[in-house]
């Protein structure tokens, strides 16, 4: 993985010193809350329902064992012994004390971590495909470009006070495991007819109140032009994006208002006119960064058959491991979706243990997926059974990846001050109702995504089944959508009808999947059935029969 050089380290250290001083001034009454707010947000610090929340960047989801140990130590010492992994590959601490945050950041800096720009109206932590570098279908490894973007966007002089937040995702594979089409900018690595490497650039995607799928602004952008082109997009956005209404301030609103053609013309004109001042991305710099992401020193091995014997091991192999492009290896998902646990939560003990497991089984690296799980990317197939036993003992081997209980949920009303409704107890309700693994396997691949409010941190619009918490006269209700997807063909789900009461959510989902079981064609996935039949048959059966009619 990337290692900081003297420049990278000096910048992060300077940032820690700056924030220490800002926090001190705030606590001393020299910086009002209003003045402190934009500064703390740009360091990942929110003031939440119960306590501050600190969002730590895990750039493109990659963590070393040493970093994971440090996160465990921080969670233990400054929080309540756990952390929460988010859909944007970050880690959130829910209970730090404001006065401790500078010290937390100083400790993170010792292992080349930070929380720079993980919130606020600026360029956020850049995300990537969690199978980067190991998937057979990829054009190129997206992570070097993510690292370059991370650096270029950090403490950017011109683009740190944008109209609204700005999220960039990079995918190296046409399968788009980074949900790049619902980001402000999505970058797809491609090769042109001459075999030259570049990006297809999408702009204006996003979820939230106004979910939109990104549109192509440029079919092919050579790698050397990456940063200058991003600057052209950002300059148009910084100058012309709306600042009068927080709900109309994302770049998607500007792109929609102007139309993609007009927006593209503006960006291209800005980019051409600014040529003498383009920020350069020399090939030598690309190569320098790429060198950190060279393939691991794999052993020459042959593929082994799937493990036999233990049924739970077989299920785990089938659901929680993924093909690797190198023979004899597999990528292994570490499920943070054990039934009865909060999706995405991990205890400090689990972090420490997993860090050691990563050292022994996967070159000392762990990845965070945007489905709130972790991944050991490079495991020898002959080690799988031993690894499984260790993960099982840590409750990190629930064989449910890609099934209905591998759901995504934002923190919701329990932690988030913007929430309309709880998500964690609904997740628990679903886990309880769908606790039978054989039933889950029969249902096959189904993604549930849940958000506690319209801000859509849980990406509910792109869930095969989306759940959105709404507030009805002070009560928690839930709106259900079907047919969303963030991979392959991105699609936004359709609302099935009136929202349901909290205690009805899991039962409603059960009625929906029962319809699927009744009408599916042989081998047809839930999403494909919804696409084929539309939402009508589901809608008709989703609601509990009226007692009088029963």
């Amino acid at each position, binding site marked *: 993985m990337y290692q900081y050089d*003297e*420049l990278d380290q*000096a*910048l992060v250290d*300077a*940032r820690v010193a*700056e924030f220490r001083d*800002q926090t001190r001034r705030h606590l001393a009454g020299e910086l009002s809350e*209003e*003045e402190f*707010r*934009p*500064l703390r947000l740009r360091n990942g610090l929110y003031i939440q329902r119960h306590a501050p929340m600190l969002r730590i960047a895990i750039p493109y989801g990659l963590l070393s064992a040493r970093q994971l140990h440090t996160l465990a130590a921080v969670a233990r010492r400054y929080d309540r012994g756990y952390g929460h992994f988010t859909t944007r590959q970050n880690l959130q601490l829910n209970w730090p004390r404001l006065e401790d945050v500078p010290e937390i950041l100083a400790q993170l800096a010792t292992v080349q971590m930070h929380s720079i720009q993980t919130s606020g*109206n600026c360029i956020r932590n850049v995300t990537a495909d969690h199978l980067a570098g190991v998937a057979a279908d990829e054009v190129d490894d997206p992570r070097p470009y993510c690292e370059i973007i991370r*650096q*270029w966007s*950090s*403490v*950017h*002089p*011109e*683009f*740190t*006070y*944008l*109209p609204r937040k700005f999220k960039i995702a990079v995918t190296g594979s046409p399968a788009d495991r980074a949900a790049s089409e619902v980001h402000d900018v999505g970058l797809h690595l491609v090769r042109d007819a001459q075999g030259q490497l570049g990006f297809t650039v999408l702009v204006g995607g996003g979820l939230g109140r106004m979910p939109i799928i990104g549109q192509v602004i440029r079919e092919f952008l050579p790698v050397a032009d990456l*940063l200058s082109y991003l600057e052209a997009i950002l*300059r148009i956005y*910084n*100058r012309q994006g709306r*600042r009068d209404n927080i709900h109309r301030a994302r770049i998607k609103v500007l792109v929609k208002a102007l139309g993609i053609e007009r927006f593209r013309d503006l960006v291209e004109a800005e980019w051409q*006119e*600014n*040529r*003498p*001042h*383009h*920020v*350069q*991305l020399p090939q030598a*710099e690309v190569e320098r960064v790429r060198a950190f992401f060279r393939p691991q020193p794999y052993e020459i091995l042959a593929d082994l058959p799937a493990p036999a014997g233990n049924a739970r091991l077989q299920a785990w192999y089938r659901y929680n491991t993924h093909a690797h492009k190198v023979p004899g290896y597999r990528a292994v998902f570490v499920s943070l979706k054990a039934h009865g646990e909060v999706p995405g939560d991990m205890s400090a003990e689990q972090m420490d243990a997993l860090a050691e497991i990563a050292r022994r089984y996967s070159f000392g690296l762990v990845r965070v997926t945007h489905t709130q799980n972790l991944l050991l990317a490079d495991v020898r197939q002959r080690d799988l059974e031993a690894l499984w036993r260790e993960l099982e003992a840590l409750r990190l081997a629930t064989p449910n990846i890609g099934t209905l209980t591998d759901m995504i949920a934002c923190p919701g009303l329990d932690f988030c001050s913007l929430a309309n409704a709880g998500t964690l107890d609904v997740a628990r309700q679903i886990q309880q109702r769908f606790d039978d693994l054989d039933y889950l396997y029969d249902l096959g691949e189904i993604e549930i995504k849940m958000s506690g409010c319209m801000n859509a941190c849980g990406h509910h619009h792109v869930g095969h089944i989306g759940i959105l918490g709404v507030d009805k006269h002070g009560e928690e209700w839930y709106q259900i959508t079907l047919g969303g997807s963030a991979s392959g063909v991105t699609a936004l789900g359709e609302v099935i009808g009136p929202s349901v009461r909290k205690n009805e959510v899991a039962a409603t989902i059960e009625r929906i999947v029962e319809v699927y079981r009744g009408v599916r064609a042989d081998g047809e996935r839930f999403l494909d059935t919804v696409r084929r039949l539309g939402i009508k048959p589901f809608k008709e059966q989703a609601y509990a029969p009226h007692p009088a009619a029963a």
Partner: protein
Amino acid sequence: MRLILRQRELVADAWRYAGEEAGADAPLIATLAELRTDPERHLARRGALGVRLTPVDRVEELATHLPRLALVACEFPGPGEGRGYSQGRLLRERYGFAGELRAVGAGVKQDLVFHLARCGFDALELAPGEDPAAAVRAWQRYEVGYQPGAAQVVLRRQRFFAATPPA
């Protein structure tokens, strides 16, 4: 008398805004709206002329007048307003403006100084109550940076450079 930070020195401001007491030929900062209404009178005045832009003003509109201007002031009215950074860079880079580039408004505080200086601002009209000494220190809050930036801040190390180095 107003004090401003110019090139990190605290100095008395020789400039006056329209409506402020001054001699007929004293250096004057007009708003873009004022310049627009009566360009001849402003451009023909004997004394130095500067223009103050609000965040919505477009620097392109000023382009033809720049050779006549000794100062451009950009407004930073609050912590969230970021259009002035683009105005600054455009003036310095695209239009090669070499006069005084001033940041003005309630948002001009020490925590923004580094960004302002990197975007080409060499003069700061600090918000009321701001400590000039702290603002001067903030000029060099970071000794390293990734992006190209104005020569106002000399970095010990920088990663990315512009096609043409800034003047």
